[in-house]
């Protein structure tokens, strides 16, 4: 069987760390990077007699998320105990939600790269999202044959977002994870920092012969902490499962880890009875009741969502869905773009989009800078775009001006582009007399090309245009050069 005879089924579980000040059930801080155990209070270390008290900020973030993805906010949800023994879980159970989660359903809209330079749209349905507490950290370096336990992370609020198994390639899984990452940052419920573990992805992967109704047996790849690793791990896992089945083997349900050094997935030693969690409602916590007034208030405080803004970019500015999606990847990018268009004028919206996604993104990426730290401000970029629009400079010269802006050659003012164009003499030559003079010179010096053109060689014309542009140091208006040159040769 070839690769195309197999169908891949992927579902994602994403643990997002909520951006609260304090823990989900205690008043200890969740700030990252503190000394071990200084942020682990009596509740977090499970001293006898302590009781959990639910953090309103965590619930409110769950509501924000539910509203942002068009889900149902459960009017009543219930916390349950998930029982297992591990030293970084001092209570012997994790407080989570099981039968009645706070967020039910919802959808994520994606644009998936098709690998051929294009992209296609896809909708992934969400199963649920539920609130739970994080565990502590086990440090397995050798402490005289002992394991070290840091409980600072214990009790950190998480929203676990579970998708339906509706993705069929690593590209779709990554597009989903990126879209979700964009949303949780957009609505400000999670900082999205994958290195610090604020956004952790588990991928459930299975394969089945194309056309088969039943799902194949899945393996769960744990803790994918970058989009690149996610792609690599899923691709490796898919091929591994296909090879195994084609060689007559059977996939066993398992939890696997991705080794980024070898690029392989390998099964973790299965914790015996790990899946026998014996969930039951936590008697320490009453049902969580969310009334419609609370939901309405949160709705009123939500920012314009990326999907709505993307639609506005398409309708009002005539952008393609691809451009509109790229420009709504984060609030910072969309704000930069909106500021640029506001100053440059709506007529230049498409040009602004090309610059923000093109030159600006590329330079920021290379310099490893966030758009909020861009050396070229939105207003300065708008100043540049305006000079392209009014034909003061050509596109080729605009790149030069942008470089100068980036290097602060025009200072920090909004009109820096004008300063650069003025002081460096980059204004486009549109005076036909001047252009004619340049063309005459070029023609005189390139008689060979002229003859070739007259003999029917079209390419010779382009060579002559190039010579004229070069002679004008790129400043001649290319359209005018074309026109006048044609006349002279015609």
């Amino acid at each position, binding site marked *: 069987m070839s690769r195309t005879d197999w169908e891949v089924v992927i579902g994602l579980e994403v643990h997002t760390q909520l951006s*609260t*000040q*304090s823990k989900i059930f*205690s*008043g*200890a*801080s969740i700030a990252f990077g503190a*000394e*071990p*155990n*200084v*942020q*682990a*209070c*009596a509740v977090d*270390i499970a*001293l006898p007699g302590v009781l959990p*008290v*639910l*953090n*309103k*900020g*965590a*619930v409110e973030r769950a509501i924000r998320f539910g509203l942002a993805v068009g889900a149902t906010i459960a009017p009543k949800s*219930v916390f349950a105990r998930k*029982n297992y*023994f*591990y*030293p970084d879980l001092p209570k012997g159970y994790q407080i989570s939600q099981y039968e*009645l989660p706070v967020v039910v359903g919802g959808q994520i809209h994606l644009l998936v790269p098709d690998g051929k330079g294009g992209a296609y749209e896809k909708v992934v349905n969400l199963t649920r999202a539920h609130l739970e507490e994080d565990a502590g950290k*086990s*440090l*397995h370096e050798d*402490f005289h*044959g*002992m*394991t*070290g*336990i*840091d*409980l600072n992370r214990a009790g950190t609020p998480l929203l676990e977002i579970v998708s339906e198994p509706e993705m069929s390639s690593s590209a779709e899984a990554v597009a989903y994870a990126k879209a979700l990452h964009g949303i949780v940052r957009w609505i400000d419920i999670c900082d999205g920092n994958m290195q610090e573990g604020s956004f952790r992805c588990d991928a459930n992967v299975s394969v089945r012969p194309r056309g088969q109704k039943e799902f194949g047996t899945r393996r769960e790849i744990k803790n994918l902490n970058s989009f690149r690793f996610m792609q690599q791990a899923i691709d490796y896992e898919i091929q591994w499962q296909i090879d195994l089945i084609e060689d007559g083997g059977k996939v066993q349900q398992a939890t696997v880890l991705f080794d980024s050094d070898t690029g392989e997935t390998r099964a*973790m*030693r299965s914790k*015996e*009875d790990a899946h*026998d969690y*014996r969930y039951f*409602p936590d*008697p320490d*916590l*009453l*049902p*969580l*009741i969310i009334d419609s007034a609370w939901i309405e208030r949160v709705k009123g405080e939500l920012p314009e969502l990326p999907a709505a803004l993307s639609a506005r970019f398409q309708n009002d500015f005539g952008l393609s869905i691809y451009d509109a999606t790229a420009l709504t990847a984060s609030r910072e990018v969309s704000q930069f773009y909106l500021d640029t268009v506001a100053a440059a004028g709506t007529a230049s919206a498409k040009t602004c989009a090309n610059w923000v996604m093109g030159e600006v993104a590329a330079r920021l990426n290379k310099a490893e800078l966030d758009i909020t730290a861009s050396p070229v401000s939105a207003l300065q970029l708008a100043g540049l775009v305006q000079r392209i629009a009014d034909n003061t400079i050509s596109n080729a010269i605009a790149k030069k001006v942008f470089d100068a802006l980036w290097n602060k050659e025009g200072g920090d003012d909004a009109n820096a582009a004008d300063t650069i164009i003025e002081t460096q003499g980059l204004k486009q030559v549109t005076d036909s007399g001047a252009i004619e003079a340049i063309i005459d010179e070029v023609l005189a010096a390139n008689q060979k090309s002229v003859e070739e053109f007259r003999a029917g060689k079209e390419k010779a014309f382009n060579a002559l245009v190039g010579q004229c542009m070069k002679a004008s140091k790129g400043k001649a208006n290319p359209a005018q050069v074309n026109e006048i040159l044609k006349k002279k040769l015609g």
Partner: protein
Amino acid sequence: MSLSLDEVRHIAKLARLELAEGDLDATQAKLNGIFGLIEEMQAVNTDGVEPMSHPQELAQRLREDKVIETDRRAAYQAIAPQTEAGLYLVPQVIE
């Protein structure tokens, strides 16, 4: 419903209870007694009764999202069996 001895062993293991072979029969009898009680309760007709997750018909009170705890690590670690570099030490966990 009655539990097999293997199920009793499994439950004990999940609860991290060490049961001597000699205690298995007595434990099985006690657990089966509990299941007997549950069976009696299941005879009650509960059609149309919404399951409750808590005996009290109340809503969870919520806490404002504020940090109110201070660092009391030294006090907590004073009663821990073993600590080092701010960490609680436990017998080696092998993944």
